[in-house]
């Protein structure tokens, strides 16, 4: 068992596809919340093999895409403070803020370093005692515990020049916001697998109970997605709405208690601004008072000015599942992965990038 190739078997995929075709009678629209799922769905051409009864839409599950321009501008402003070293995951570099990107300010001399892990950022802080290292805390519940762990480790090791700009976002509250807006009618939700590895499956119950929408937690291999769709179809045809886990090898109903404990210790919830969606109550995480010395918002005076949205970019509508990249007149002409206009084209998990790279699926 290697946990990867087994879940890519084409023979088993065919079995699932034929069962889905046999079972699916009712027209239904499923949203895959997570950008990682969007990539699997496009890479393996999953939309194309599903019956015409099933319509798939992508959700706002790409942390980079949903980061508001005002927040990106904060990160870019921080990078321009001379004693600051910005440590960030690579995907952030190219994302355009209102006036610039981290990559551009880096080319102009700002010290912006790409790291693979917060552990690397802590090392940079230890190696550069005269500088302030600010880690850009962007991500969902999957990432937040790793960043909480880094703050706890900085405290234990007496590292005083390490800060986090906490722009974390929480998934269940934004799904509620999308459902409450009523803009897009959903009949099933493919719940994010690695967010659920941390929070478990219980936090999705309200969707099944209050909104009557079937929910299935999926993994990231093609068989995982197909099995998830198969389970959603079964619920719909049986008139059920409950939360199930298709990704049982990686997700337990109660989640990862240790990770949740660390997250809770360091962060508290706050309102957060989502691109295209606006402010959603309790959907963000800020550093608790007890850990304020590590909070970049507190340590630095940041004034990035007012944000500005690129004209013509409809990332916001795409993130709400209301439009697709094909509705954007900039798509593929002005906006490409090489010269992206909006974040959904920059991030490898953004819908625009998935449509662009795996073009064969356009009709899906």
């Amino acid at each position, binding site marked *: 068992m290697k946990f990867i190739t087994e879940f890519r078997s084409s023979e088993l995929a065919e079995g699932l596809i034929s*069962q889905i075709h046999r079972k699916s009678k009712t027209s239904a629209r499923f949203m895959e919340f997570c950008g*990682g799922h969007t990539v699997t769905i496009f890479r393996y051409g999953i939309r194309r093999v599903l019956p015409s009864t099933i319509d798939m839409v992508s959700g706002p599950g790409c942390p980079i895409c949903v980061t508001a321009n005002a927040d990106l501008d904060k990160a870019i402003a921080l990078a321009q403070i001379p004693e600051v070293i910005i440590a960030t995951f690579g995907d952030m570099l190219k994302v355009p803020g209102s006036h610039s990107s981290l990559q551009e300010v880096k080319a102009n001399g700002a010290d912006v370093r790409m790291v693979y892990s*917060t552990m690397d950022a802590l090392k940079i802080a230890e190696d550069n005692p005269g500088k302030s290292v600010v880690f850009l805390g962007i991500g969902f519940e999957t990432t937040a515990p790793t960043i909480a*762990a880094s703050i706890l480790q900085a405290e234990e090791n007496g590292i005083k020049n390490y800060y986090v700009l906490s722009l974390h976002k929480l998934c269940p509250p934004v799904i509620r916001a999308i459902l409450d807006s009523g803009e897009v009618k959903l009949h099933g939700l493919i719940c994010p697998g690695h*967010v659920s590895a941390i929070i478990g499956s219980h936090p999705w119950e309200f969707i099944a109970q209050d909104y009557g929408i079937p929910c299935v937690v999926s993994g990231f291999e093609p068989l995982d997605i197909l099995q998830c769709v198969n389970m959603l179809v079964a619920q719909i045809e049986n008139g059920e709405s409950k939360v199930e886990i298709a990704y*049982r090898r990686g997700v337990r109903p109660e989640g*990862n208690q240790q*990770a949740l404990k660390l997250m809770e210790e360091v962060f508290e919830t706050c309102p957060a601004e989502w691109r295209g969606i606006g402010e959603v109550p309790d959907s963000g995480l800020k550093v608790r008072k007890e850990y304020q010395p590590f909070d970049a918002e507190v340590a630095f005076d940041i004034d990035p000015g007012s944000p500005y949205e690129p004209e013509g970019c409809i990332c916001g509508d795409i993130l709400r599942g209301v439009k697709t990249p094909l509705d954007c007149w900039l798509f593929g002409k002005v906006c490409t992965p090489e010269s992206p206009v909006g974040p959904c084209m920059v991030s490898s998990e953004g819908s625009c990038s998935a449509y662009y790279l795996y073009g064969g699926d356009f009709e899906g």
Partner: protein
Amino acid sequence: MCLAIPALIKHIKDREAEAAIGGITRRISLRLTPEAKTGDYVLVHTGYAINILDQEEAEETLRLLREIAELAEEEG
């Protein structure tokens, strides 16, 4: 961005481990999965093991999928 990949724990020291990811060995943190043991497969996200993978559940899922495939073949 919530990408997490399976890794096999080879060796544990304090709260860190050497883990094999595909063909390469990486140092990962076990702070979020203190109960992980040598020989376990874990899901690694940005250098941290975020969960231990459940071998039995994986086999059970595959068994179910094989049943579905066999059924599909019979109904042809």
